C-alpha cells in the first residue's frame, strides 16, 4: 500500500513490526526483500513520488571543508532517492578493501568479500545487471581491447552498467502491491525517540512540511537515508543522549568519505583510439547472450598497494580533443545554440571561456586536425579521516531540524595514490606502445591540493562498521552499538570507501540485512 502521510489525521499513530526510514536504494531493497515475509513493514519517505522544491530544500546545508556541490543538489529527496539521478556504474569492492591494512589507519571491515559474495550475486538482479562475474579473464573473449598490463603492477578492473534502475519507478508497483508493506510518503522523520537509557528506540516522530504530525512505533527500525542524513538524524535525536543516538564514542558523522575526481593526465595516442573502446564505458559483451555492458579501468594491483603503502585506485580512461574548462564550456554553448536554445548557465560560460583561451584554441586546433588524446582521471579510495565529518549546524530547516555542516577533508595519501597509479598507467601505456603520457602539473605537487576537483556524490563512512564500539557506530550486522533495535543501511556504514561506486555494495548489504532481520535473532 502507498499512502500519503498528509492525508492522515494529525497526530496519527502507525504501529508495525519493522520501520525503514528512507526509500532510496537501501530502503527500497530492504522493503522489497521483506515483502511477503511474516513481518509488517512500514517504509517511510520524506518526499512523494516526484521531486518537489520544498522537500528538496530540507537537504540544504553548509559546506566548510574542501569544495563540494550544494548539499541539496548532491542528493535527491523523493521516492527512489538518489537512484533518481544515478548513472548506473556498478562494481563490487575488492577483497583487499575489507582487510585491516596496517598502512591505512582505521581500515578493516568486520566482514570479508567472501561474506558479501552471495549478496553481491543477489544485488546484481536488484540492479538489473548481468552475471556477478567481474574477473577480466572470464570476459576476455567478449571484451576485445583489454590491455595486457605488466602483472603485479596494474590490473584490469571491470564495471557493469545498470540501465540504470530507478528504484522508485521500478519497484513502486511491487511494494505497493505487497500485503505486508506500507509505504508512507511525504512523512519526514524529525526525531528518533529512544527509551531513558537510549538502549531501545521506541518510536519515530513524523512531520509533514505542512505541519501534519504523527508517530510510528515499531519493534525494529532501520535508518536508510544516505551518508549525510543518517548521521544528521542520529545527532539531532539528542533528547536522551546529549551527543545524539549511537554516539557514545563520538563517531557519528566522522570519517566522511568520497571518491575525489579530477583530470590527472593526457597521453598522445600511438594506436587507434577505438581499439580500446572497452575502457570508455557501456561496452556490450561480444559473443555472449549476456545483457551486461562493461567498462574496464586500469587499477592498482594489490601487490603495489602492499609494497608501497598505497590506497586502492582505478583510473578512468577517456578520449577527446581537449578537456580544459574553456574548451568544454565552449562546446556546451555551441551544442545548446545548435539545438536552438540558450545554454543552461550562460553566466558561467562568459566567465570560463575568456579565462581559458589557450585551452580553447588548442581544443579547436585539435578538432580541426582530428587529433584526439587519451585522458586520464582518478577514482581513488580515500584514507579514512576522523576530521572529515558531518556535524549539525546552528541553522534549522523548515521542520525545525538542525541543518548539516559538511567538512570534507582530503589527505596526502589520496593524492599520492592517484599520482602513483596514473604514473604506472603512463609507464604501461608507453611500454605497450599505446601512448605517451604527461601528468598534470598540480598532480606532481606533493600536497593535498586538487585542481579541478569534482565529486561523485558518494557519501560514505559516517556511521562506520566495526565490531569494536570504540571504532564503529554499527556492528557487523549493521546494528547500532548499544541500541538493540536500531539498524543502519546504506553507504554510511562503509568502513572504507574502495574505488568502486557504492550502489552495488549498498544493495548487497541491504539484502544481507534483510536476511538478518527475517531471522529469529532480532526483536
Amino acid at each position, binding site marked *: 500500500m502507498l499512502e500519503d502521510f498528509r492525508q492522515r489525521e494529525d497526530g496519527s499513530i502507525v504501529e508495525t513490526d519493522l520501520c525503514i526510514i528512507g526509500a532510496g536504494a537501501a530502503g527500497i531493497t530492504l522493503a522489497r526483500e521483506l515483502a511477503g515475509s511474516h513481518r509488517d513493514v512500514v517504509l517511510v519517505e520524506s518526499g512523494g513520488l516526484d521531486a518537489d522544491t520544498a522537500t528538496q530544500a530540507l537537504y540544504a546545508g553548509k559546506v566548510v571543508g574542501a569544495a563540494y556541490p550544494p548539499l541539496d543538489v548532491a542528493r535527491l529527496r523523493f521516492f527512489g532517492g538518489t537512484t533518481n539521478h544515478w548513472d548506473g556504474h556498478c562494481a563490487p569492492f575488492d577483497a583487499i578493501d575489507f582487510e585491516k591494512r596496517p598502512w591505512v589507519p582505521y581500515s578493516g571491515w568486520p566482514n570479508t568479500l567472501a561474506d558479501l559474495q552471495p549478496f553481491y550475486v543477489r544485488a546484481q538482479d536488484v540492479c538489473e545487471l548481468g552475471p556477478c562475474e567481474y574477473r577480466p579473464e572470464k570476459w576476455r573473449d567478449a571484451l576485445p581491447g583489454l590491455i595486457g598490463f605488466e602483472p603485479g603492477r596494474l590490473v584490469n578492473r571491470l564495471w557493469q552498467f545498470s540501465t540504470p534502475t530507478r528504484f522508485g519507478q521500478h519497484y513502486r508497483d511491487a511494494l505497493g502491491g505487497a500485503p505486508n508493506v506500507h509505504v508512507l510518503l511525504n512523512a519526514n522523520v524529525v526525531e528518533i525517540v529512544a527509551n531513558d537509557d537510549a538502549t531501545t528506540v521506541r518510536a519515530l516522530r513524523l512531520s509533514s512540511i505542512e505541519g501534519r504530525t504523527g508517530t510510528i512505533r515499531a519493534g525494529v527500525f532501520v535508518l536508510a537515508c544516505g551518508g549525510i542524513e543518517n548521521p544528521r538524524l542520529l545527532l539531532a535525536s539528542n533528547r536522551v543522549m546529549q551527543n545524539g543516538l549511537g554516539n557514545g564514542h563520538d563517531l557519528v558523522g566522522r570519517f566522511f568519505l568520497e571518491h575525489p575526481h579530477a583530470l590527472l593526465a593526457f597521453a598522445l595516442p600511438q594506436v587507434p583510439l577505438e581499439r580500446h573502446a572497452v575502457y570508455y564505458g557501456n561496452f556490450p559483451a561480444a559473443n555472449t547472450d549476456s545483457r551486461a555492458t562493461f567498462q574496464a579501468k586500469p587499477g592498482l594491483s594489490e601487490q603495489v598497494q602492499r609494497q608501497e603503502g598505497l590506497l586502492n585506485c582505478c583510473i578512468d580512461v577517456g578520449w577527446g580533443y581537449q578537456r580544459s574548462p574553456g574548451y568544454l564550456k565552449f562546446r556546451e554553448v555551441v551544442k545548446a545554440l545548435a539545438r536552438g536554445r540558450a545554454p543552461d548557465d550562460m553566466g558561467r560560460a562568459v566567465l570560463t571561456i575568456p579565462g581559458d583561451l589557450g585551452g580553447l584554441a588548442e581544443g579547436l586546433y585539435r578538432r580541426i586536425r582530428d587529433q584526439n588524446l587519451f585522458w586520464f582521471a582518478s577514482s581513488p579510495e580515500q584514507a579514512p579521516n576522523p576530521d572529515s565529518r558531518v556535524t549539525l549546524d546552528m541553522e534549522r530547516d523548515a521542520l525545525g531540524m538542525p541543518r548539516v555542516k559538511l567538512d570534507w577533508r582530503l589527505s596526502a595519501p589520496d593524492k599520492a595514490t592517484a599520482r602513483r597509479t596514473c604514473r604506472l598507467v603512463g*609507464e604501461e601505456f608507453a611500454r605497450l606502445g599505446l601512448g*605517451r603520457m604527461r601528468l598534470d602539473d598540480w598532480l606532481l605537487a606533493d600536497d593535498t591540493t586538487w585542481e579541478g576537483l569534482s565529486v561523485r556524490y558518494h557519501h560514505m563512512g559516517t556511521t562506520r562498521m566495526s565490531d569494536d564500539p570504540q571504532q564503529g557506530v554499527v556492528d557487523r550486522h549493521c546494528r547500532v552499538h548499544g541500541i538493540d533495535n536500531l539498524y543502519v543501511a546504506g553507504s554510511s556504514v562503509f568502513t572504507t570507501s574502495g574505488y568502486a561506486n557504492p550502489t552495488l555494495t549498498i544493495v548487497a548489504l541491504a539484502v544481507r540485512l534483510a536476511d538478518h532481520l527475517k531471522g529469529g535473532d532480532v526483536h
Partner: protein
Amino acid sequence: MSENGHSIPRRVLLAALASVLASPVLAWAIPSGAARSNRIRAERLLSDLGGAKAIGARYLALAPQESAPGFLAACLFPADGAGTCGEADPDRLRRALDDRRRRDFAAGDTVLIDGWILARTEARLCALTTLG
C-alpha cells in the same frame, strides 16, 4: 597543462618523443674519438635533434651526476662500453635500446620531464646529444 615559459614547448617535446629511436638509419660511419662518436651515434638514433637536446638538458639538470659522456655511453651502449663504436650493427643497437626502453617502463625506471614520462634510456640518449 598549458605551456608556459618554464616548460619545453609541447610541440617540441612531442616531436622529440615521437622521434626517439624511430628515425631511419642513415650512414653509420662514425668519426673517431669516443665522446664525439657516441654523441653522433645518439644523434643518429633521433630524428628531432632540437627536441632531444631540450629533453637531454632537462634530464641533466635533474641528474647532474650523469653529465659525463662516458657514463651515459656505458649505460646506453654497454656492449662496447664507452669506447668507439664503428663496428656496432645499428639495427641491433636500435633493437637493444628499444628493449631496454621497454624494460625501463616495466621496471618503473622512468623520469618526469615537464610531466612527461620518459624511460631513463630515452632521457640518457637525449642527454648524450648535449655532451661531448
